[in-house]
């Protein structure tokens, strides 16, 4: 910061170093309490694990190219799909949007200097790192072959490193809880003057709803995994039927966390899409209140639908019926969001740049993901489709087609803000096309595999499924090329990209009302908010375009 003797005008004009250059040296990163730097460290870490778990997925798909064993034994295949799932869920998707992008964006969007508890923020990053080390350590302790769900009694009896892995997930949960607490308080207490709840960007609403789930649901996961650990070490008979325990009880506990966790993974993606479709079509969001409240509604209802993972598990039929009903209840607010995003495009001036292309890809893939969820919520149909590739496809349409596509769109959108550099538009658009084609080829095929009866988690399969598996595998290779194109484009931009203006997209929200990259304390002065974050200058207030 400049010295206070200068006149206000001179102070405003003085080029102030950005958060990237204000301090230097390794220690300035390792002990930073700047939310932007912590966000970038999260980003580097989560992208690393995305790469690792993604390559594991490519190995799985390649093994599945033929019906018989190719280059992985059954035991290796089981370990690889377990690590793919566990790393993707616990080390990539859960922290990706909230902790990486959210950390960077949230205080900027609120007009705040930082999150409410900057040191807690750094602590949650290091807890995440400890969890990551623990999960990676399982590789050297015989790895893990339980699936990312750790179902009992298999997880009690298998010889692999279940304790280290569940301890890792347990610790990762604390990182998630601390981030959640921090964000809830930040949203309540750190909004710029004039930013009422109704003037908050929808990205903030989404992060807020996510943070609430993180705080309320994650402790249940911690308790569940802790019970599993003491079951394994002390044989107390909670889940093991041989000791009088109930293995299905574990599934209830696990999904009580893990269903809300699905919304921890997707809600922030919703937030990103709300920003992208408005800014790049120069339109006010359609149905602000409906989108904001549906985020909260989803957060609440998500706690009472866990049993839809267990329609054939042996839970009571009545429970199945109640959970099916509640599952359909959560479909309505989700549908409202999709309709509102599409309606936002109406009457706009749509800029087809890379972030917008990713938003449009999201609308396609997430619509497929949402509609196929309706099949799975329908009781009798789920009996047929449960634990088949239909579920694999649905899950990936929501998690990859939804969250990951939104995340990549968000990265392109905020990259100029993060690094002060523009990316190559052509490369970005090519990446979006490759991701779209590769993703749909990979996973659309799997719906057909599923309705043809192909079970999940098979490393060898009946020959009749071969052609569909081959199409899916080829799709996964295209998707891989697309994702590497994303990585290349973004990294290229940091080094060689043109300098970005402070507000390259002409956005109205506060994150763009500061330099690119932002100064260390985000804003020179307190910002006063007087209107909506979606009040773009192109909007024709005369009503002629209504």
């Amino acid at each position, binding site marked *: 910061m400049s010295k206070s003797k200068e006149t206000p005008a001179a102070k405003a004009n003085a080029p102030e170093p950005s958060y990237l250059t204000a301090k230097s040296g390794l220690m300035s990163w390792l002990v930073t309490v700047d939310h932007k730097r912590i966000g970038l460290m999260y980003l580097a870490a989560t992208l690393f694990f995305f790469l690792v778990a993604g390559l594991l997925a490519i190995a799985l798909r390649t093994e599945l190219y033929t019906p018989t064993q190719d280059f992985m034994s059954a035991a290796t295949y089981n370990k690889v799909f377990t690590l793919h799932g566990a790393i993707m869920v616990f080390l990539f998707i859960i922290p990706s949007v909230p902790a990486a992008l959210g950390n960077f964006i949230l205080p900027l969007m609120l007009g705040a200097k930082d999150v409410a508890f900057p040191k807690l923020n750094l602590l949650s990053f290091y807890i995440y790192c400890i969890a990551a080390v623990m999960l990676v350590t399982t590789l050297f302790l015989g790895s893990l072959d339980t699936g990312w769900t750790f179902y009992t009694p298999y997880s009690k009896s298998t010889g692999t490193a279940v304790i280290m892995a569940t301890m890792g997930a347990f610790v990762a949960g604390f990182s998630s809880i601390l981030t959640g607490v921090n964000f809830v308080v930040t949203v309540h207490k750190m909004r710029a003057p004039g930013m009422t709840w109704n003037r908050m960007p929808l990205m903030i609403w989404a992060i807020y709803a996510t943070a609430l789930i993180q705080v309320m649901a994650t402790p249940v996961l911690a308790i569940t995994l802790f019970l599993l650990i003491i079951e394994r070490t002390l044989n107390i008979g909670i889940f093991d039927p041989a000791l009088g325990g109930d293995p299905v009880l574990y599934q209830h506990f696990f999904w009580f966390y893990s269903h809300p966790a699905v919304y921890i993974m997707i809600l922030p993606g919703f937030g990103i899409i709300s920003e992208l479709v408005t800014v790049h079509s120069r339109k006010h969001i359609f149905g602000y209140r409906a989108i904001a409240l549906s985020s909260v509604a989803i957060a609440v209802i998500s706690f009472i639908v866990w049993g839809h993972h267990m329609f054939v598990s042996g839970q009571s039929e009545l429970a199945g019926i109640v959970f099916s009903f509640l599952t359909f209840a959560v479909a309505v607010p989700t549908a409202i969001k999709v309709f509102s995003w599409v309606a936002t495009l109406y009457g706009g*001036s749509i800029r087809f740049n890379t972030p917008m292309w990713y938003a449009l890809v999201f609308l396609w893939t997430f619509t497929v993901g949402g509609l196929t969820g309706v099949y799975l919520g329908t009781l*009798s149909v789920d009996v047929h489709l449960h634990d088949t590739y239909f579920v694999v496809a649905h899950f990936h349409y929501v998690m990859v087609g939804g969250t990951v596509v939104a995340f990549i769109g968000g990265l392109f959108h905020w990259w100029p803000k993060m690094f002060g550099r523009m990316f190559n538009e052509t490369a970005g658009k090519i990446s979006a096309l490759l991701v779209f084609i590769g993703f749909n080829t990979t996973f659309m095929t799997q719906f057909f595999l599923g309705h043809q009866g192909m079970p999940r988690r098979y490393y060898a399969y009946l020959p009749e499924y071969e052609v569909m598996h081959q199409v899916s595998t080829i799709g996964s290779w295209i998707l891989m090329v697309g994702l590497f194109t994303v990585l290349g484009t973004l990294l290229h931009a940091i080094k060689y990209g043109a300098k970005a203006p402070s507000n390259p997209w002409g956005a109205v929200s506060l994150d763009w009302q500061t330099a690119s990259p932002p100064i260390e304390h985000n804003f020179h002065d307190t910002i006063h908010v007087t209107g909506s974050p979606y009040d773009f200058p192109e909007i024709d207030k005369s009503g002629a375009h209504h």
Partner: protein
Amino acid sequence: MINFSMMFHGQLGMLGVPPEKLGTPPMSDSPWQLLPSASNHAASLDNLYVFLTAVCGVSFVVVIGAMVWFMYKYKYKSDKDRTSPLTHNGKLEFGWSAIPAVFLMVFFVWGEVGFVNMSSPPADAIDIRVTGEKWKWTIEYPGRSMASTIEVEGGEVAPYLIVPLGQPVRLTMTSKDVIHSFYIPAFRVKKDVVPGRYSTVWFTAIEEGTFPVFCTEYCGDEHSSMLAVVKVVKPEEYKAAVEAATVLEQGASETAEQFGEKVFKTFACNSCHTVDGSAKVGPSFKGVVGRTENLADGSSIVVDENYIRESIYQPNAKVVAGFTPQMPTFAGQINDEQMNALIAYMKTLK
């Protein structure tokens, strides 16, 4: 015996029932088709499935069609573009909340009715017992001492569920170890098979034929070879078919070694023990008789008839070093005649 020509280039499988050797005919000719409607549940479920697909298909076309139309109509033209001030529309929002809600309730009720029906076996159903364990199914009929099995492609032996056409059948299922799940795609039925409790599933087969059965709850190394075959026969053939499939005795023209190989496959020993020298879940049987094995407790033993017998009846008494104690006991399942033949067969694996 089902004997279809090898549909796929035949690597030598080492699985319990290698999927490529299950030998059931393809369930459908193309991915677009529905599976055969081989049970009462399949018929009613398929109507709902088609209805769902129609409604979801139309919804997708409407949503994505609107998106594509807007993308075309409202694309950026110049910096002078003016955009609509529209921010909300109460009637529209109510409509697109209420209309999906109505359809969702139709799906819910229709699915619920089918589910309740699937959960309510009729009183006159034929009872068949199914036991899951890593990694085989055991299918037992009332009054028969042996579990039923069938020889499929390449001399492999698969568990065999025989059901009569047009008569309700109820499977009462449990597991000996971890959770499995019994899934007959052609019948659209699936139920988890949980240790420490019984779960049931029922159906009435309405189409003759041979269909695959899958384990659909992940259960460890050989999860993908935990397969079985279900065959629907005419009611008058049912009794004879069950009797033929529940005998495991040495045939008059069979040597002890040949019979032993059949025992080896029937009890799915090959899920874990190869005959080609490669280690799987347990030690390979190649050259096992007379071999000196180092045991997990540090001692060593020369494998002879008594050690084999002990290891089959008390598998965890003397575990070979490098393997985990996870073999189930076969006490009460493999009788003396079968044991003798099995040992005779193992001696041939040099």
